[in-house]
């Protein structure tokens, strides 16, 4: 499991895919959460995983981060086959739930996850908190924060170690519109600096901020392309109808 030389390759190679999934299948008993997902994601881009509840977005992210083992297939991040503990230092994962300690302060949470990722520089913690607009609340107990503020802290904890690959599971749920715009601004800045970002969402109006979209339905990627490309392919003006069109096609094919 430990792979010490995997961390030495710091910058992602632009020619290699940052993330690769090959035939990923995940079953929970009788439920097939993922039903054969294959793709390559190039570095430095923002990918949107779009799909309804229960379509398998979280399961896909958990397989890519090595949180759970695939029933079949393989997941590779930055050239390292997952699960791999050492490789996790180069991955940020903002879970769908907040996953922060309510009895600790904002700063203590960020410091804890920084230490867990092996970050030594205290300035990085301050930077992450500033990025999500929580710098002035660093001494507040997390349990007393609003839902959106907790979400922001959760994001800060996922990028405190400045990872080249970032998985964000519905990062903007509960975040107000103004901050949402700021968040996407940050995501773009990070991507321009070379970070590969995978964002799951079922909010279609956020989709156009992604470089590429992957429509997920019933554990499969049913379509992939840019927002405008997918609309054109489906011959509709909005993404909802495009999604439904592709969903109908995959249903008919099955």
């Amino acid at each position, binding site marked *: 499991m430990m792979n010490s030389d995997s961390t030495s390759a710091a910058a992602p190679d632009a020619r290699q895919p940052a993330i690769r999934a090959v035939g990923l299948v995940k079953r929970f008993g009788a439920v097939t959460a993922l039903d054969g997902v294959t793709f390559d994601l190039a570095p430095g881009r923002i990918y949107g995983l779009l799909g309804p509840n229960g379509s398998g977005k979280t399961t896909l992210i958990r397989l890519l981060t090595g949180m759970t083992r695939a029933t079949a297939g393989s997941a590779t991040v930055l050239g390292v086959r997952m699960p791999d503990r050492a490789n996790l*230092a180069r991955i940020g994962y903002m879970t769908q739930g907040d996953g922060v300690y309510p009895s600790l302060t904002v700063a203590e949470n960020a410091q804890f996850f920084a*230490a867990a*990722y092996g970050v030594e520089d205290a300035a990085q913690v301050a930077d992450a908190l500033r990025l999500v607009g929580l710098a002035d609340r660093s001494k507040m107990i997390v349990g007393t924060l609003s839902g959106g503020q907790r979400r922001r802290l959760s994001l800060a904890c996922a990028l405190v170690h400045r990872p080249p690959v970032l998985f964000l599971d519905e990062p903007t749920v509960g975040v107000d519109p103004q901050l949402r715009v700021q968040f996407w601004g940050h995501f773009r800045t990070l991507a321009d600096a070379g970070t590969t970002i995978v964002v799951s969402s079922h909010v279609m109006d956020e989709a156009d901020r992604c470089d590429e979209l992957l429509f997920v339905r019933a554990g499969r990627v049913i379509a992939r392309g840019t927002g405008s490309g997918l609309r054109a392919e489906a011959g509709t003006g909005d993404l909802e109808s495009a999604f439904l069109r592709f969903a109908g096609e995959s249903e008919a094919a099955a």
Partner: protein
Amino acid sequence: MSARRLRAIVLRVIAEIRRDRPSLALLFIAPIVVTGLLTFILRDTTSPDVRVAIATEGTGPAAGQVVTRLASALTGAGMTVTVAASPDASRNAVRDGAATVAIVLPANLAAGRDAQIALVTKGLDPAGDGAQIQAVSSAIVGSLASSLGAVLPAVVHQTVYGTPSADPMAPFAPAIVAFFLYFFVYLLTGVSFLRERTGGTLERLMATPVTRGEIVTGYTLGFGFFAMFQVAILLVWALGTVRVPAIGPLPEFSLGLGIAVAGSPLLAFAAVLLLALGAVSLGIFLSTFARTELQVIQFIPVVLVPQFLLSGVLFSVDSLPAVLQPLVHVMPLAYAVDALREIFIRGADLSVTSLQVDLAVLAVVAVLFAAVASRTIRRDVV
């Protein structure tokens, strides 16, 4: 294992508990309240049902006179008194249950300190015996002081079964210290770790390079830190005693058992701490099977109560039915209770084999459970 990451986990565990008032109360106030109550129940029980059989080894009218005077004094103190024909007859009365205490007066009663009055109990119930002995002793002293003057004979406690102890409370203190520590540490770790699981922070933590071993070790050290204080409180309670004077309508009472400890309190501290470290892993392990905090509590009857019953806390291990004996050997609590009794009563140090065995088993259990706990950590969180 990375020292930095481990340190971060330990400090986080400590910071969380420090902020959690109810848990802090559970850690520090609960042992004081519970053990304080026990002090009253075990030490200060008022007027137990005492049935005395008096006998004397002495002959002649003088001896008979002492017996008669003592009998009336004890009757005056509310006890049921019979005069037995011989010391053996009085012991038989205790064995049969006709009497709860036999008083055997020596022939040389007037010889002062050299004389020994024997108080004989059945010996199966140290707590009950303790109360009986205490009641009878004070009545005897009151009665004999008037007839014998200032120099009183020594009073020794003998038992029909089992070994008598100088202090009937001595075998209890270690058991109670060990059990309550085990109980509180398990409860706190189980609930804390469950929160880690259900709160999504465990998933988060598993997404960092932190290893499972680091998590379990971090928890063990973090809770070990608090357990240290708890052990200290419990030991002070067991070994020390404070008399609280009567205030207003409250009568005078004493806090603490004041057990005379024959061995090293530091060694006792180490033994209980080993037990506590095992309890941390047990809490983490069992939290795997719980979905709610209530379920952590529901494990108590399954995991802790059998240990309470079978580890010699209330009932002596030797008096347990043979069928249950093998079970005793798989209970960590039994080894801790035994280790403490060795240290408290026998004054054992590290050169004593049976103490070595106890400590070794406790250490192995702590390590083994930590290994098992770290294997079960990574169960898919639903």
